[in-house]
């Protein structure tokens, strides 16, 4: 590789803040022609923000970007594309009802003398692009029905047609089979040979070591290190990715573990996860760790009956449980606090009281009519227990802060008197103070004998709270650690598919 070559794209001291969250801080990055540059980091390390800045979707708050030595300001995605920076997102953004050729040339369709679309020229041009890539692809079929891998190729063909000099790929292999990954890598190598500078964002360490020439690590929005791939080992890279300080932790209180409350045996859902087995005892917190897309949320959705398993079984208190709907799960004492508060957790128009009572609103009714006094009493009891900061239980949920909204979601489920609690990223988007409170609440609930499954992308949170940690990697259980054997490095190694030493 030409180490000395001047970078095509250069970022210096780039920062970006969203509200209270510093997503990127003072990040440097240089992309060089003829080079595949890998960008790795944990969930939330700032990879996506960086990609979006390069795509022109976000504008940096501070710092400088240079393209071929010239100052670069991207006013929007169109500007980035125009300047030869092509971004291929994890889920391709194509028009499913248009043909492959139309998608490649959308917005720039060749015209015939009558100002109509020159279909012949359009299809010929698209065919040339795919032939260049060495891929057989009919260009006159609609994109709907193509596999994700094929859709990515359409995006790559589009980038080529735009003469892109910088190609940014955001976790392109996340939903590809191993054969498709091989084909993609062949194409990436081909593009590299042509002189394209490629930024390859990924979290599969093995893949990074297969394809990249150089690797940069982000952690908590900061640039940690950039090194030629030959000079690091996978273990080094992982150590750089983790290593977050553990001081903000709220450790779990000691609780006596009871009998097994929930057991998953060989659970599988096609294309998402398979052979997932674990047990949770009363009073125990089991952490489900893994990277985004590893199948953690999908497992929780099956346990709660929103989705259905293709194989395996769930046992509740040692008995086979037939969970076909959330109603069934709730009857068995299982509740699920979803990842996305706004989309699945709360009815924002409703008051705190109405949100808390919603799952049991029928039980609070006599002869159809809701007992408002009972509802209000219940809501204010839980609000007090969880220390919800609000003017009163009649305040609308939309006006609460993130942490307080999360407490209302938890209160809502506690009102159903559950025995098994599935928590999906319970402190995401919650400020530090409220985070500690949520941790305290979870710990208390475990101490009261509840069995808790805690899904979290924050390793310190999992390490601090969980008695046992089950690590998922690409839909399979990659490792299981007791509290004493777990470390950030070991979890991350298992989560990135790097076999533990």
């Amino acid at each position, binding site marked *: 590789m030409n180490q000395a070559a001047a970078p095509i794209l250069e970022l210096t001291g780039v920062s970006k803040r969203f*509200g*209270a969250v510093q997503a990127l801080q003072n990040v440097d990055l240089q992309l060089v022609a003829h080079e595949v540059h890998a960008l790795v980091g944990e969930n939330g390390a700032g990879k996506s923000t960086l990609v979006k800045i390069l795509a022109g979707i976000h504008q940096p708050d501070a710092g400088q970007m240079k393209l071929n030595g010239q100052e670069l300001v991207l006013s929007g995605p169109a500007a980035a594309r125009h300047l030869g920076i092509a971004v291929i997102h994890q889920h391709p953004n194509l028009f499913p009802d248009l043909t492959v050729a139309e998608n490649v040339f959308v917005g720039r369709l060749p015209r015939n003398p009558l100002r109509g679309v020159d279909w012949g020229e359009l299809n010929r041009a698209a065919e040339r692009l795919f032939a260049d890539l060495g891929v057989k692809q009919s260009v006159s079929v609609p994109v709907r029905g193509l596999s994700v891998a094929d859709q990515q190729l359409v995006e790559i063909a589009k980038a080529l047609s735009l003469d892109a000099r910088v190609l940014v790929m955001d976790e392109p292999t996340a939903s590809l089979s191993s054969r498709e990954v091989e084909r993609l890598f062949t194409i990436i190598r081909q593009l590299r040979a042509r002189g394209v500078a490629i930024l390859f964002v990924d979290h599969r360490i093995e893949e990074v070591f297969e394809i990249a020439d150089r690797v940069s690590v982000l952690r908590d929005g900061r640039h940690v290190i950039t090194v030629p791939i030959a000079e690091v080992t996978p273990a080094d890279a992982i150590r750089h990715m983790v290593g977050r300080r553990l001081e903000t932790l709220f450790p779990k209180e000691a609780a006596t573990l009871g009998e097994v409350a929930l057991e998953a045996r060989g659970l599988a859902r096609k294309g998402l996860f398979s052979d997932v087995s674990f047990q949770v005892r009363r009073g125990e917190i089991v952490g489900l760790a893994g990277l985004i897309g590893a199948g953690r949320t999908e497992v929780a959705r099956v346990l*709660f009956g*929103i989705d259905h398993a293709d194989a395996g079984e769930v046992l509740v208190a040692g008995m086979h449980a037939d969970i076909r*709907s*959330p*109603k069934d*799960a*709730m009857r068995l004492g299982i509740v*699920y606090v*979803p990842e996305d508060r706004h*989309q*699945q*957790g*709360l*009815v*924002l*128009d*409703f008051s705190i009281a*109405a949100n808390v*009572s*919603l*799952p049991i*609103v*029928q*039980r*609070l*009714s006599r002869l*159809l*009519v*809701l007992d*408002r006094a009972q509802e209000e009493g219940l809501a*204010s009891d839980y*609000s*007090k227990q969880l*220390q*919800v*900061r*609000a*003017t*009163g*239980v*009649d*305040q*609308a949920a*939309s*006006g609460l*802060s*993130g942490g307080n909204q999360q407490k209302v979601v938890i209160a*809502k489920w506690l009102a159903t008197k559950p025995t098994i609690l599935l928590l999906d990223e319970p402190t995401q*988007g919650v400020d530090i*103070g409220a985070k500690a*409170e949520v941790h305290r609440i979870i710990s208390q609930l475990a101490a009261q004998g509840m069995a808790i499954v805690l899904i979290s992308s924050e390793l310190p949170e999992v390490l601090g709270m969980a008695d046992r940690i089950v690590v998922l990697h690409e839909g399979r259980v990659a490792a299981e650690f007791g509290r004493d054997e777990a470390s950030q490095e070991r979890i991350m190694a298992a989560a990135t598919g790097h076999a533990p030493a």
Partner: protein
Amino acid sequence: MSVRAIDSPTSSALAGRIGLERTLTLVARLREVGILLVLLVVVAIVSIQAPLFFSVSNFEQILLNVSLIAVVAVGQTTVVLTRNVDLSVGSVVGLVAFVTGDLLKEHTLDVPGAIAVGCLLGVGLGAFNGLIIAVARVPAIVATLGTLYVYRGLDFLVAGGKQVSAIDLPRGYLGIASSSVLGVPTLIVAAALIALVAAYLLRNSGVGRELYAIGSNPAAAEVIGIPTQRLIFGAFVVCGLCAGIAGVLWGSRFGSVNALAASGLELQVIAAVVVGGVNIFGGSGTVVGAVLGAILLATIENALRILHLSEFWLLAIDGAVILLAVATDAAIRGYFQRILMRTGRR
């Protein structure tokens, strides 16, 4: 860390937010009051222009015209709250009206029997809509557009060019519309009772809460284990029942029924619901608002007739009222959302 803050606001920023919350709730409650105010303004202006307008008998006339629409609007509101719509209500009213009238004309059934059959027919037609939407998962706007034509077609099939006239109908049946309870026409009393019961249940029952939740956040409703599809089915059955009741009363009110009865009623009903502040995307609005919307539209129509304005103005003003109502809602909602964003953390 400060201790529990329920009932004890801690900072001035929080206090400001609280004031805002109160205002927001107030505005939501005031939506009905707003329509009432517009109504009063219309009444005042028209009364000055045309003294004829301001009389008990004229108001009674307006309310009589509104009563059947109001009953249908109650059912429509229930459906719209769940993020659905029922375009077939006009056809249901028409079909039920003709079948009821025909049963009475042919002396197949006595008055209570014919009324019961009419209501059950409405329930059945609503249930059929509900099945297509909740079980086959066809979008409501398409499904009920289909049944709008199917039910009207059935109406033509049953009627076969015939017509039911007042002389064919028993006095006991026609008497429903002309009788009164404590000086108030029975139709108005019936419509008011239905609306009040529905308003009370939507506001104070568990099922009502769940209907609002479905419209407000379907994903959350599903996760909570609310039987979403079953409730949507139920909402269409209620809507069918309301249309059935209106259909049963139709012949009594108008004396004659043919296969075209209540054509286009669905649009009047949806207009009333929207003007009444029910969010067409579900989740918010009240039956009281919808009924007030119906009264407002009927009052304007009546006023324009008394002022001898042409049909063109009638339609144009109806349209303007709908657009104005929706624009006001959007403006108020947007305004408060912006303030909330500025003061709130998220």
